[in-house]
Structure formats: structure tokens, C-alpha cells
């Protein structure tokens, strides 16, 4: 029982790390662009596929971690600007419903793009997991990759992101645009560039989440689909645009989910949503969200 609980907590930590990487990008992009990007999960999946492909190309186990980093950077740098400039920039003045649907259309397109590029056969590349070996915690052997690297990278990403938003010029411009776009533009902030960089960072984080997830699971079409709905749940539960909130909530949902896996497997998929419904019932703007004043 105690051992099972420990195992569940370790699983939960590893899963929360992945979930956070995806959810934080989603919430950051929403905070600035005010668009909920349904295709965010596809960037996660593409990051994963590119990482698996690179690991295969590099061959040597020692280089496999490098492959993960390159995959995340490449996908973020390529897809981020292409999607923001090519598509989203055209729809900022449209209704929210239409914006949501544009990203849904993009999601459909990217899902098939994955099938065309990588086929429908499952792919499994676990070189990074083998490279880092196992560690022992309280009598349980657990892969160092999932126990240390995943939560570690998530934590570093969180700290870097908070530092970036609070302490750098671009980061503070992003925060300014989030709070009041018109005022920010009036004092000379280039909103266009802020949008572009925010979306690219968000895309990169999703791809990094995917790249990190790639070695722990076999990749099949639709891996991004599950991830996106879960990160919706994280983002809504935390409150829209809340970065530290997303971290806490990802941890909460990650742990709740893995506890369910061990102790009530039928509920595995349901738990995050039940948590979300329960939270929103009590706090309609999410755990960390602030209620917006109604503008008459």
C-alpha cells in the first residue's frame, strides 16, 4: 500500500512535469493573444515525432538528450512564427468563436500532416531513458529520466519563464500587453513583435513537452489530442493566463490522475475533469484567476 502510494506519487510528478510544459504555453498564449489554441496539442505531438526521428538519426545514446533539445527549438522556431504570422495575425479582429475555429481547423490539418510525414505505425525511441539509468527511492527502482529530468526541466522552465516575464524588457512588454493592450501600444510597445514572440515561446514549450514525452511512450497518431484536452483542464482550473497557477494545478491534476491509475483505474480519465468542475463550482474564475470587472 505504502509502496503503491509512493509509486503513484512518483508517476504523478513525472506526468505533472509534462503536463505543465504544455499547459503553461497554452495559458501564456491565451494571456497575450486572447486565443485558446486548439492546435497547441499538435505542436506537442510534432515535437515528439521530430525528437524521435532525431534520436534515430543521431544513433548514439549520448547524443539523444541533445536531440530532444534540438527538436523543441526547431519546431518552436519553425511552426511558431509560421502559424502566428501566416494565420493568427489575420484573425485578431474576428469574433472569439471564429478564432477558436481557426485553431481547430489548424489542428485538423496538423493531425493529418503527422500521419503523412510519420505514418500510422507506432514509434518508440527510449535512448534518453536508457542513457540516464535508474535510481532507487524507498525500495523502488525508477528511471532517472522520469524522476529527475522531467520534473527538473519543468521546474527550470517555470523559473526561467517567471524571470523572463518579470526581469527582461521583452518579458515585461508581454506582461504589459496582457494587462492592457491599448495602453501598452500607446507607450511604444511593439504589440506585433510581442504577439510573435509570445506565440513562438508557447509553441516551443509545447514542442519541448512533446520532445520530453517522446522517450517515455510509443508515439501513435492522436498523442496530441489527449494532451490538449488535459491542458485545457489545467488552464481553466488554474485560471486563464496564470503561469504559477498552471504549475500548481498541473501538479494537482498529475498527482490526482496517477493516484486514480493505481487505486481507481476506471476513473483515470475522468479525475482531471471532475477536479476542474469542482474547482469552477466554487471559484468561477479558476483557482488563481481574478474575476474580471464587467464593462458596461
Amino acid at each position, binding site marked *: 500500500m505504502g509502496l503503491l502510494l509512493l509509486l503513484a506519487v512518483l508517476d504523478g510528478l513525472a506526468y505533472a512535469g509534462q503536463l505543465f510544459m504544455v499547459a503553461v504555453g497554452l495559458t501564456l498564449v*491565451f494571456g497575450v493573444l486572447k486565443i*485558446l489554441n*486548439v492546435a497547441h496539442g499538435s505542436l506537442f505531438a510534432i515535437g515528439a515525432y521530430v525528437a524521435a526521428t532525431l534520436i534515430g538519426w543521431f544513433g548514439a545514446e549520448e547524443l539523444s538528450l541533445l536531440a530532444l533539445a534540438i527538436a523543441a527549438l526547431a519546431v518552436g522556431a519553425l511552426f511558431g512564427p509560421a502559424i502566428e504570422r501566416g*494565420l493568427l495575425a*489575420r*484573425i485578431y479582429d*474576428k*469574433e*472569439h*468563436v*471564429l478564432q*477558436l*475555429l*481557426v485553431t*481547430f*481547423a*489548424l*489542428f*485538423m*490539418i496538423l*493531425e*493529418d*500532416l503527422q*500521419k*503523412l510525414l510519420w505514418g*500510422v505505425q507506432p514509434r518508440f525511441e527510449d535512448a534518453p531513458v536508457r542513457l540516464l539509468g535508474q535510481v532507487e527511492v524507498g525500495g523502488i527502482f525508477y528511471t532517472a529520466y522520469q524522476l529527475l529530468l522531467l520534473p527538473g526541466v519543468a521546474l527550470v522552465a517555470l523559473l526561467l519563464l517567471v524571470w523572463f516575464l518579470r526581469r527582461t524588457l521583452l518579458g515585461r512588454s508581454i506582461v504589459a500587453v496582457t494587462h492592457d493592450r491599448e495602453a501598452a501600444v500607446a507607450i511604444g510597445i511593439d504589440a506585433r513583435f510581442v504577439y510573435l514572440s509570445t506565440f513562438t515561446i508557447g509553441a516551443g514549450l509545447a514542442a519541448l513537452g512533446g520532445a520530453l514525452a517522446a522517450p517515455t511512450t510509443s508515439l501513435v497518431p492522436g498523442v496530441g*489530442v489527449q494532451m490538449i*484536452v488535459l491542458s*485545457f*483542464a489545467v488552464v*481553466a482550473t488554474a485560471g*486563464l493566463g496564470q503561469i504559477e497557477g498552471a504549475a500548481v494545478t498541473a501538479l494537482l491534476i498529475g498527482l490526482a490522475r496517477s493516484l486514480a491509475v493505481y487505486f481507481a483505474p*476506471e476513473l*483515470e*480519465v*475522468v479525475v482531471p*475533469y*471532475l477536479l*476542474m*468542475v469542482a474547482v*469552477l*463550482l466554487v471559484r*468561477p*474564475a479558476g483557482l488563481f484567476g481574478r474575476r474580471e470587472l*464587467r464593462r*458596461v
Partner: protein
Amino acid sequence: MAHRLLVAAAAALLLLLATAQPWLRFVLTIALSTGLAVLGIMMLLRAGQVSFGHALYVAAGAYTVAFLRPHSGEALFLVLAGAVVATGIGLLVGLFVTRYRDIFFGMLNLAFSMVAWSLLEKLYALTRGTDGIRVARPEVAGLALEGPAYEWALLLLALALALTSGGLVARYLRTPAGEALGAVKTRETRLEFAGISARRVLLQAYLVSAFLAGVGGAIAALATLHVTPLLAYWTHSGELVFVAILGGTGHVLGPFLGAVVFELVRVYAAASFPDAWQMILGLVLLGIILAATRGLVGLVDDLLARFGRRA
């Protein structure tokens, strides 16, 4: 008046197509069932609210048919039962979600449909999981029909339901409660100042939308004679919103026009490009949103206006 003629022409064309190409009967029945669900989505869109979870009600209608089929052999009763169950669930969920707007409204609907999806998938003893449940072919209005006759009966039933619901919803949209939906979208606070409860207006529309989705789901179950948890999956909900935008929200004909075009594009694209039909649908959707915001109905209206000026 022009629209009424258009509806009659569309219905006639549909029957003509079904006569000319027998395999289209099934496709068109499915399209009409989708259209019914989308009609409800359209009402919510009028209020500026997009539900990413209405597949829940489609699945509720479909699974009700599957669960009740061993106990009843009458299609009309099964459709009614499906609609009632969907409306009941709609009331429970609706009382909660109509307190929220925009993204939260969309996400909560999504959450409930995902809960339903995973229950349908995991409660194997009851739902047979991903295998789904086979539905034995029922009688229609007391007649035991075979093959083509059953397909015709179902198509006509779907068409009759589509025409009736379309007419009723068009009427509803012109009543004070229907007009208030538009006000929820533009200035909800002013609606409240006028003494109308925005939540109540939205809940009414939500119940109607759950009812219509239930009817659509029941018809779909009777046409495919097989139900699976995928009916409740969020991508299916997304498709319903897709069709609503494709058809346009300006007129009740929109959802059905959108659904027929959607199903035809899907059938042809899936046959010619099995791995890329989603991509084609996505591109069509992008084109519609970027080029013709008012959907197919908007295009038809523009054509009619041009035609009217010339005449």
C-alpha cells in the same frame, strides 16, 4: 418568402439526390441528423457561446436508442426517448454551465463530454467499451421494413424532423426570448437592466440544443445501427461547431446546408485521400472563415440579392 422557397427547393433536391444515388440515402440521413444537432449549436452561437461538448448530447441520444432497443422495437419511440434523455442531462449540466461565459462555457461543456466519453469507454459491462453496441433494426411506425425501404423511411423521418425543428427554431428566434439571445452576445448587462435574466434565456436555448442533439444522435444510431464512445469525443463536438460556421448562423437553413456539404466533402475526401481527409476539411474551414464569414447561407443570400436586383 425567398427563404421558404429555398427550403422547399433544398428538400426537393435532397430527395432527388437520394433517388438518383441510392448510397447517398445513408449519407444524407447522417447529414440531416448532424444538421439537427448543429441547429442547437447555432442557437448558442447566436448568444456568442460556443460549446465544445455537444457531442455529449448526440451520444446521449444514440446510446439511449442502443440501451432501449432490446425493450422496444419502435423507431419513433426510440427517437423520442433519446431526445428526452438528452434534454434531461442537458438540464443537469445546463443549470451549471449557463453560469459561465466564453472560454469557460466552452471548456466546461468539453469537460462534461469528456467525462461521458470516458465512462462510455470504461464501463465495459454496460457499454461494451470501444467496441460499441450493435442496434437491431427497429420497426418504423409499426412497419417492419427491409433494406432500401428502411433507409427511405429513416431519411423521410429525418427530413420531416429537420423541417419541423427548423421551422420551430426560426419562430423561436423571433420571439422575445429568441431575440434576447443576440443581446447576451452584444451586451449582457443591458439585458439584465431590461429585467430579463440572461442565464434563463441561455438555459432555454441550451435545453433546446440538447434536445435537438439528442434527436440527431438517435437518428444517427438508427441509421448506422451501431453506437461507439467516439460519438461523445471532443473532436466530434468540434465538428458540430465547424458545421455551424460552415453553414452560417444567419438562417436555420445554414446548419443543414453546412451538414450536407460537410458529409459530402468527408465522404469524397475520405475515399480519395484516406490519410488526409481531415486536412482537406480543415482547409475548407479556414477558407470559409477567412473569405466568407457568414458561411454558405451568406453566400446563398448574396446570390439571391444579386438575382433579385436583376429580376
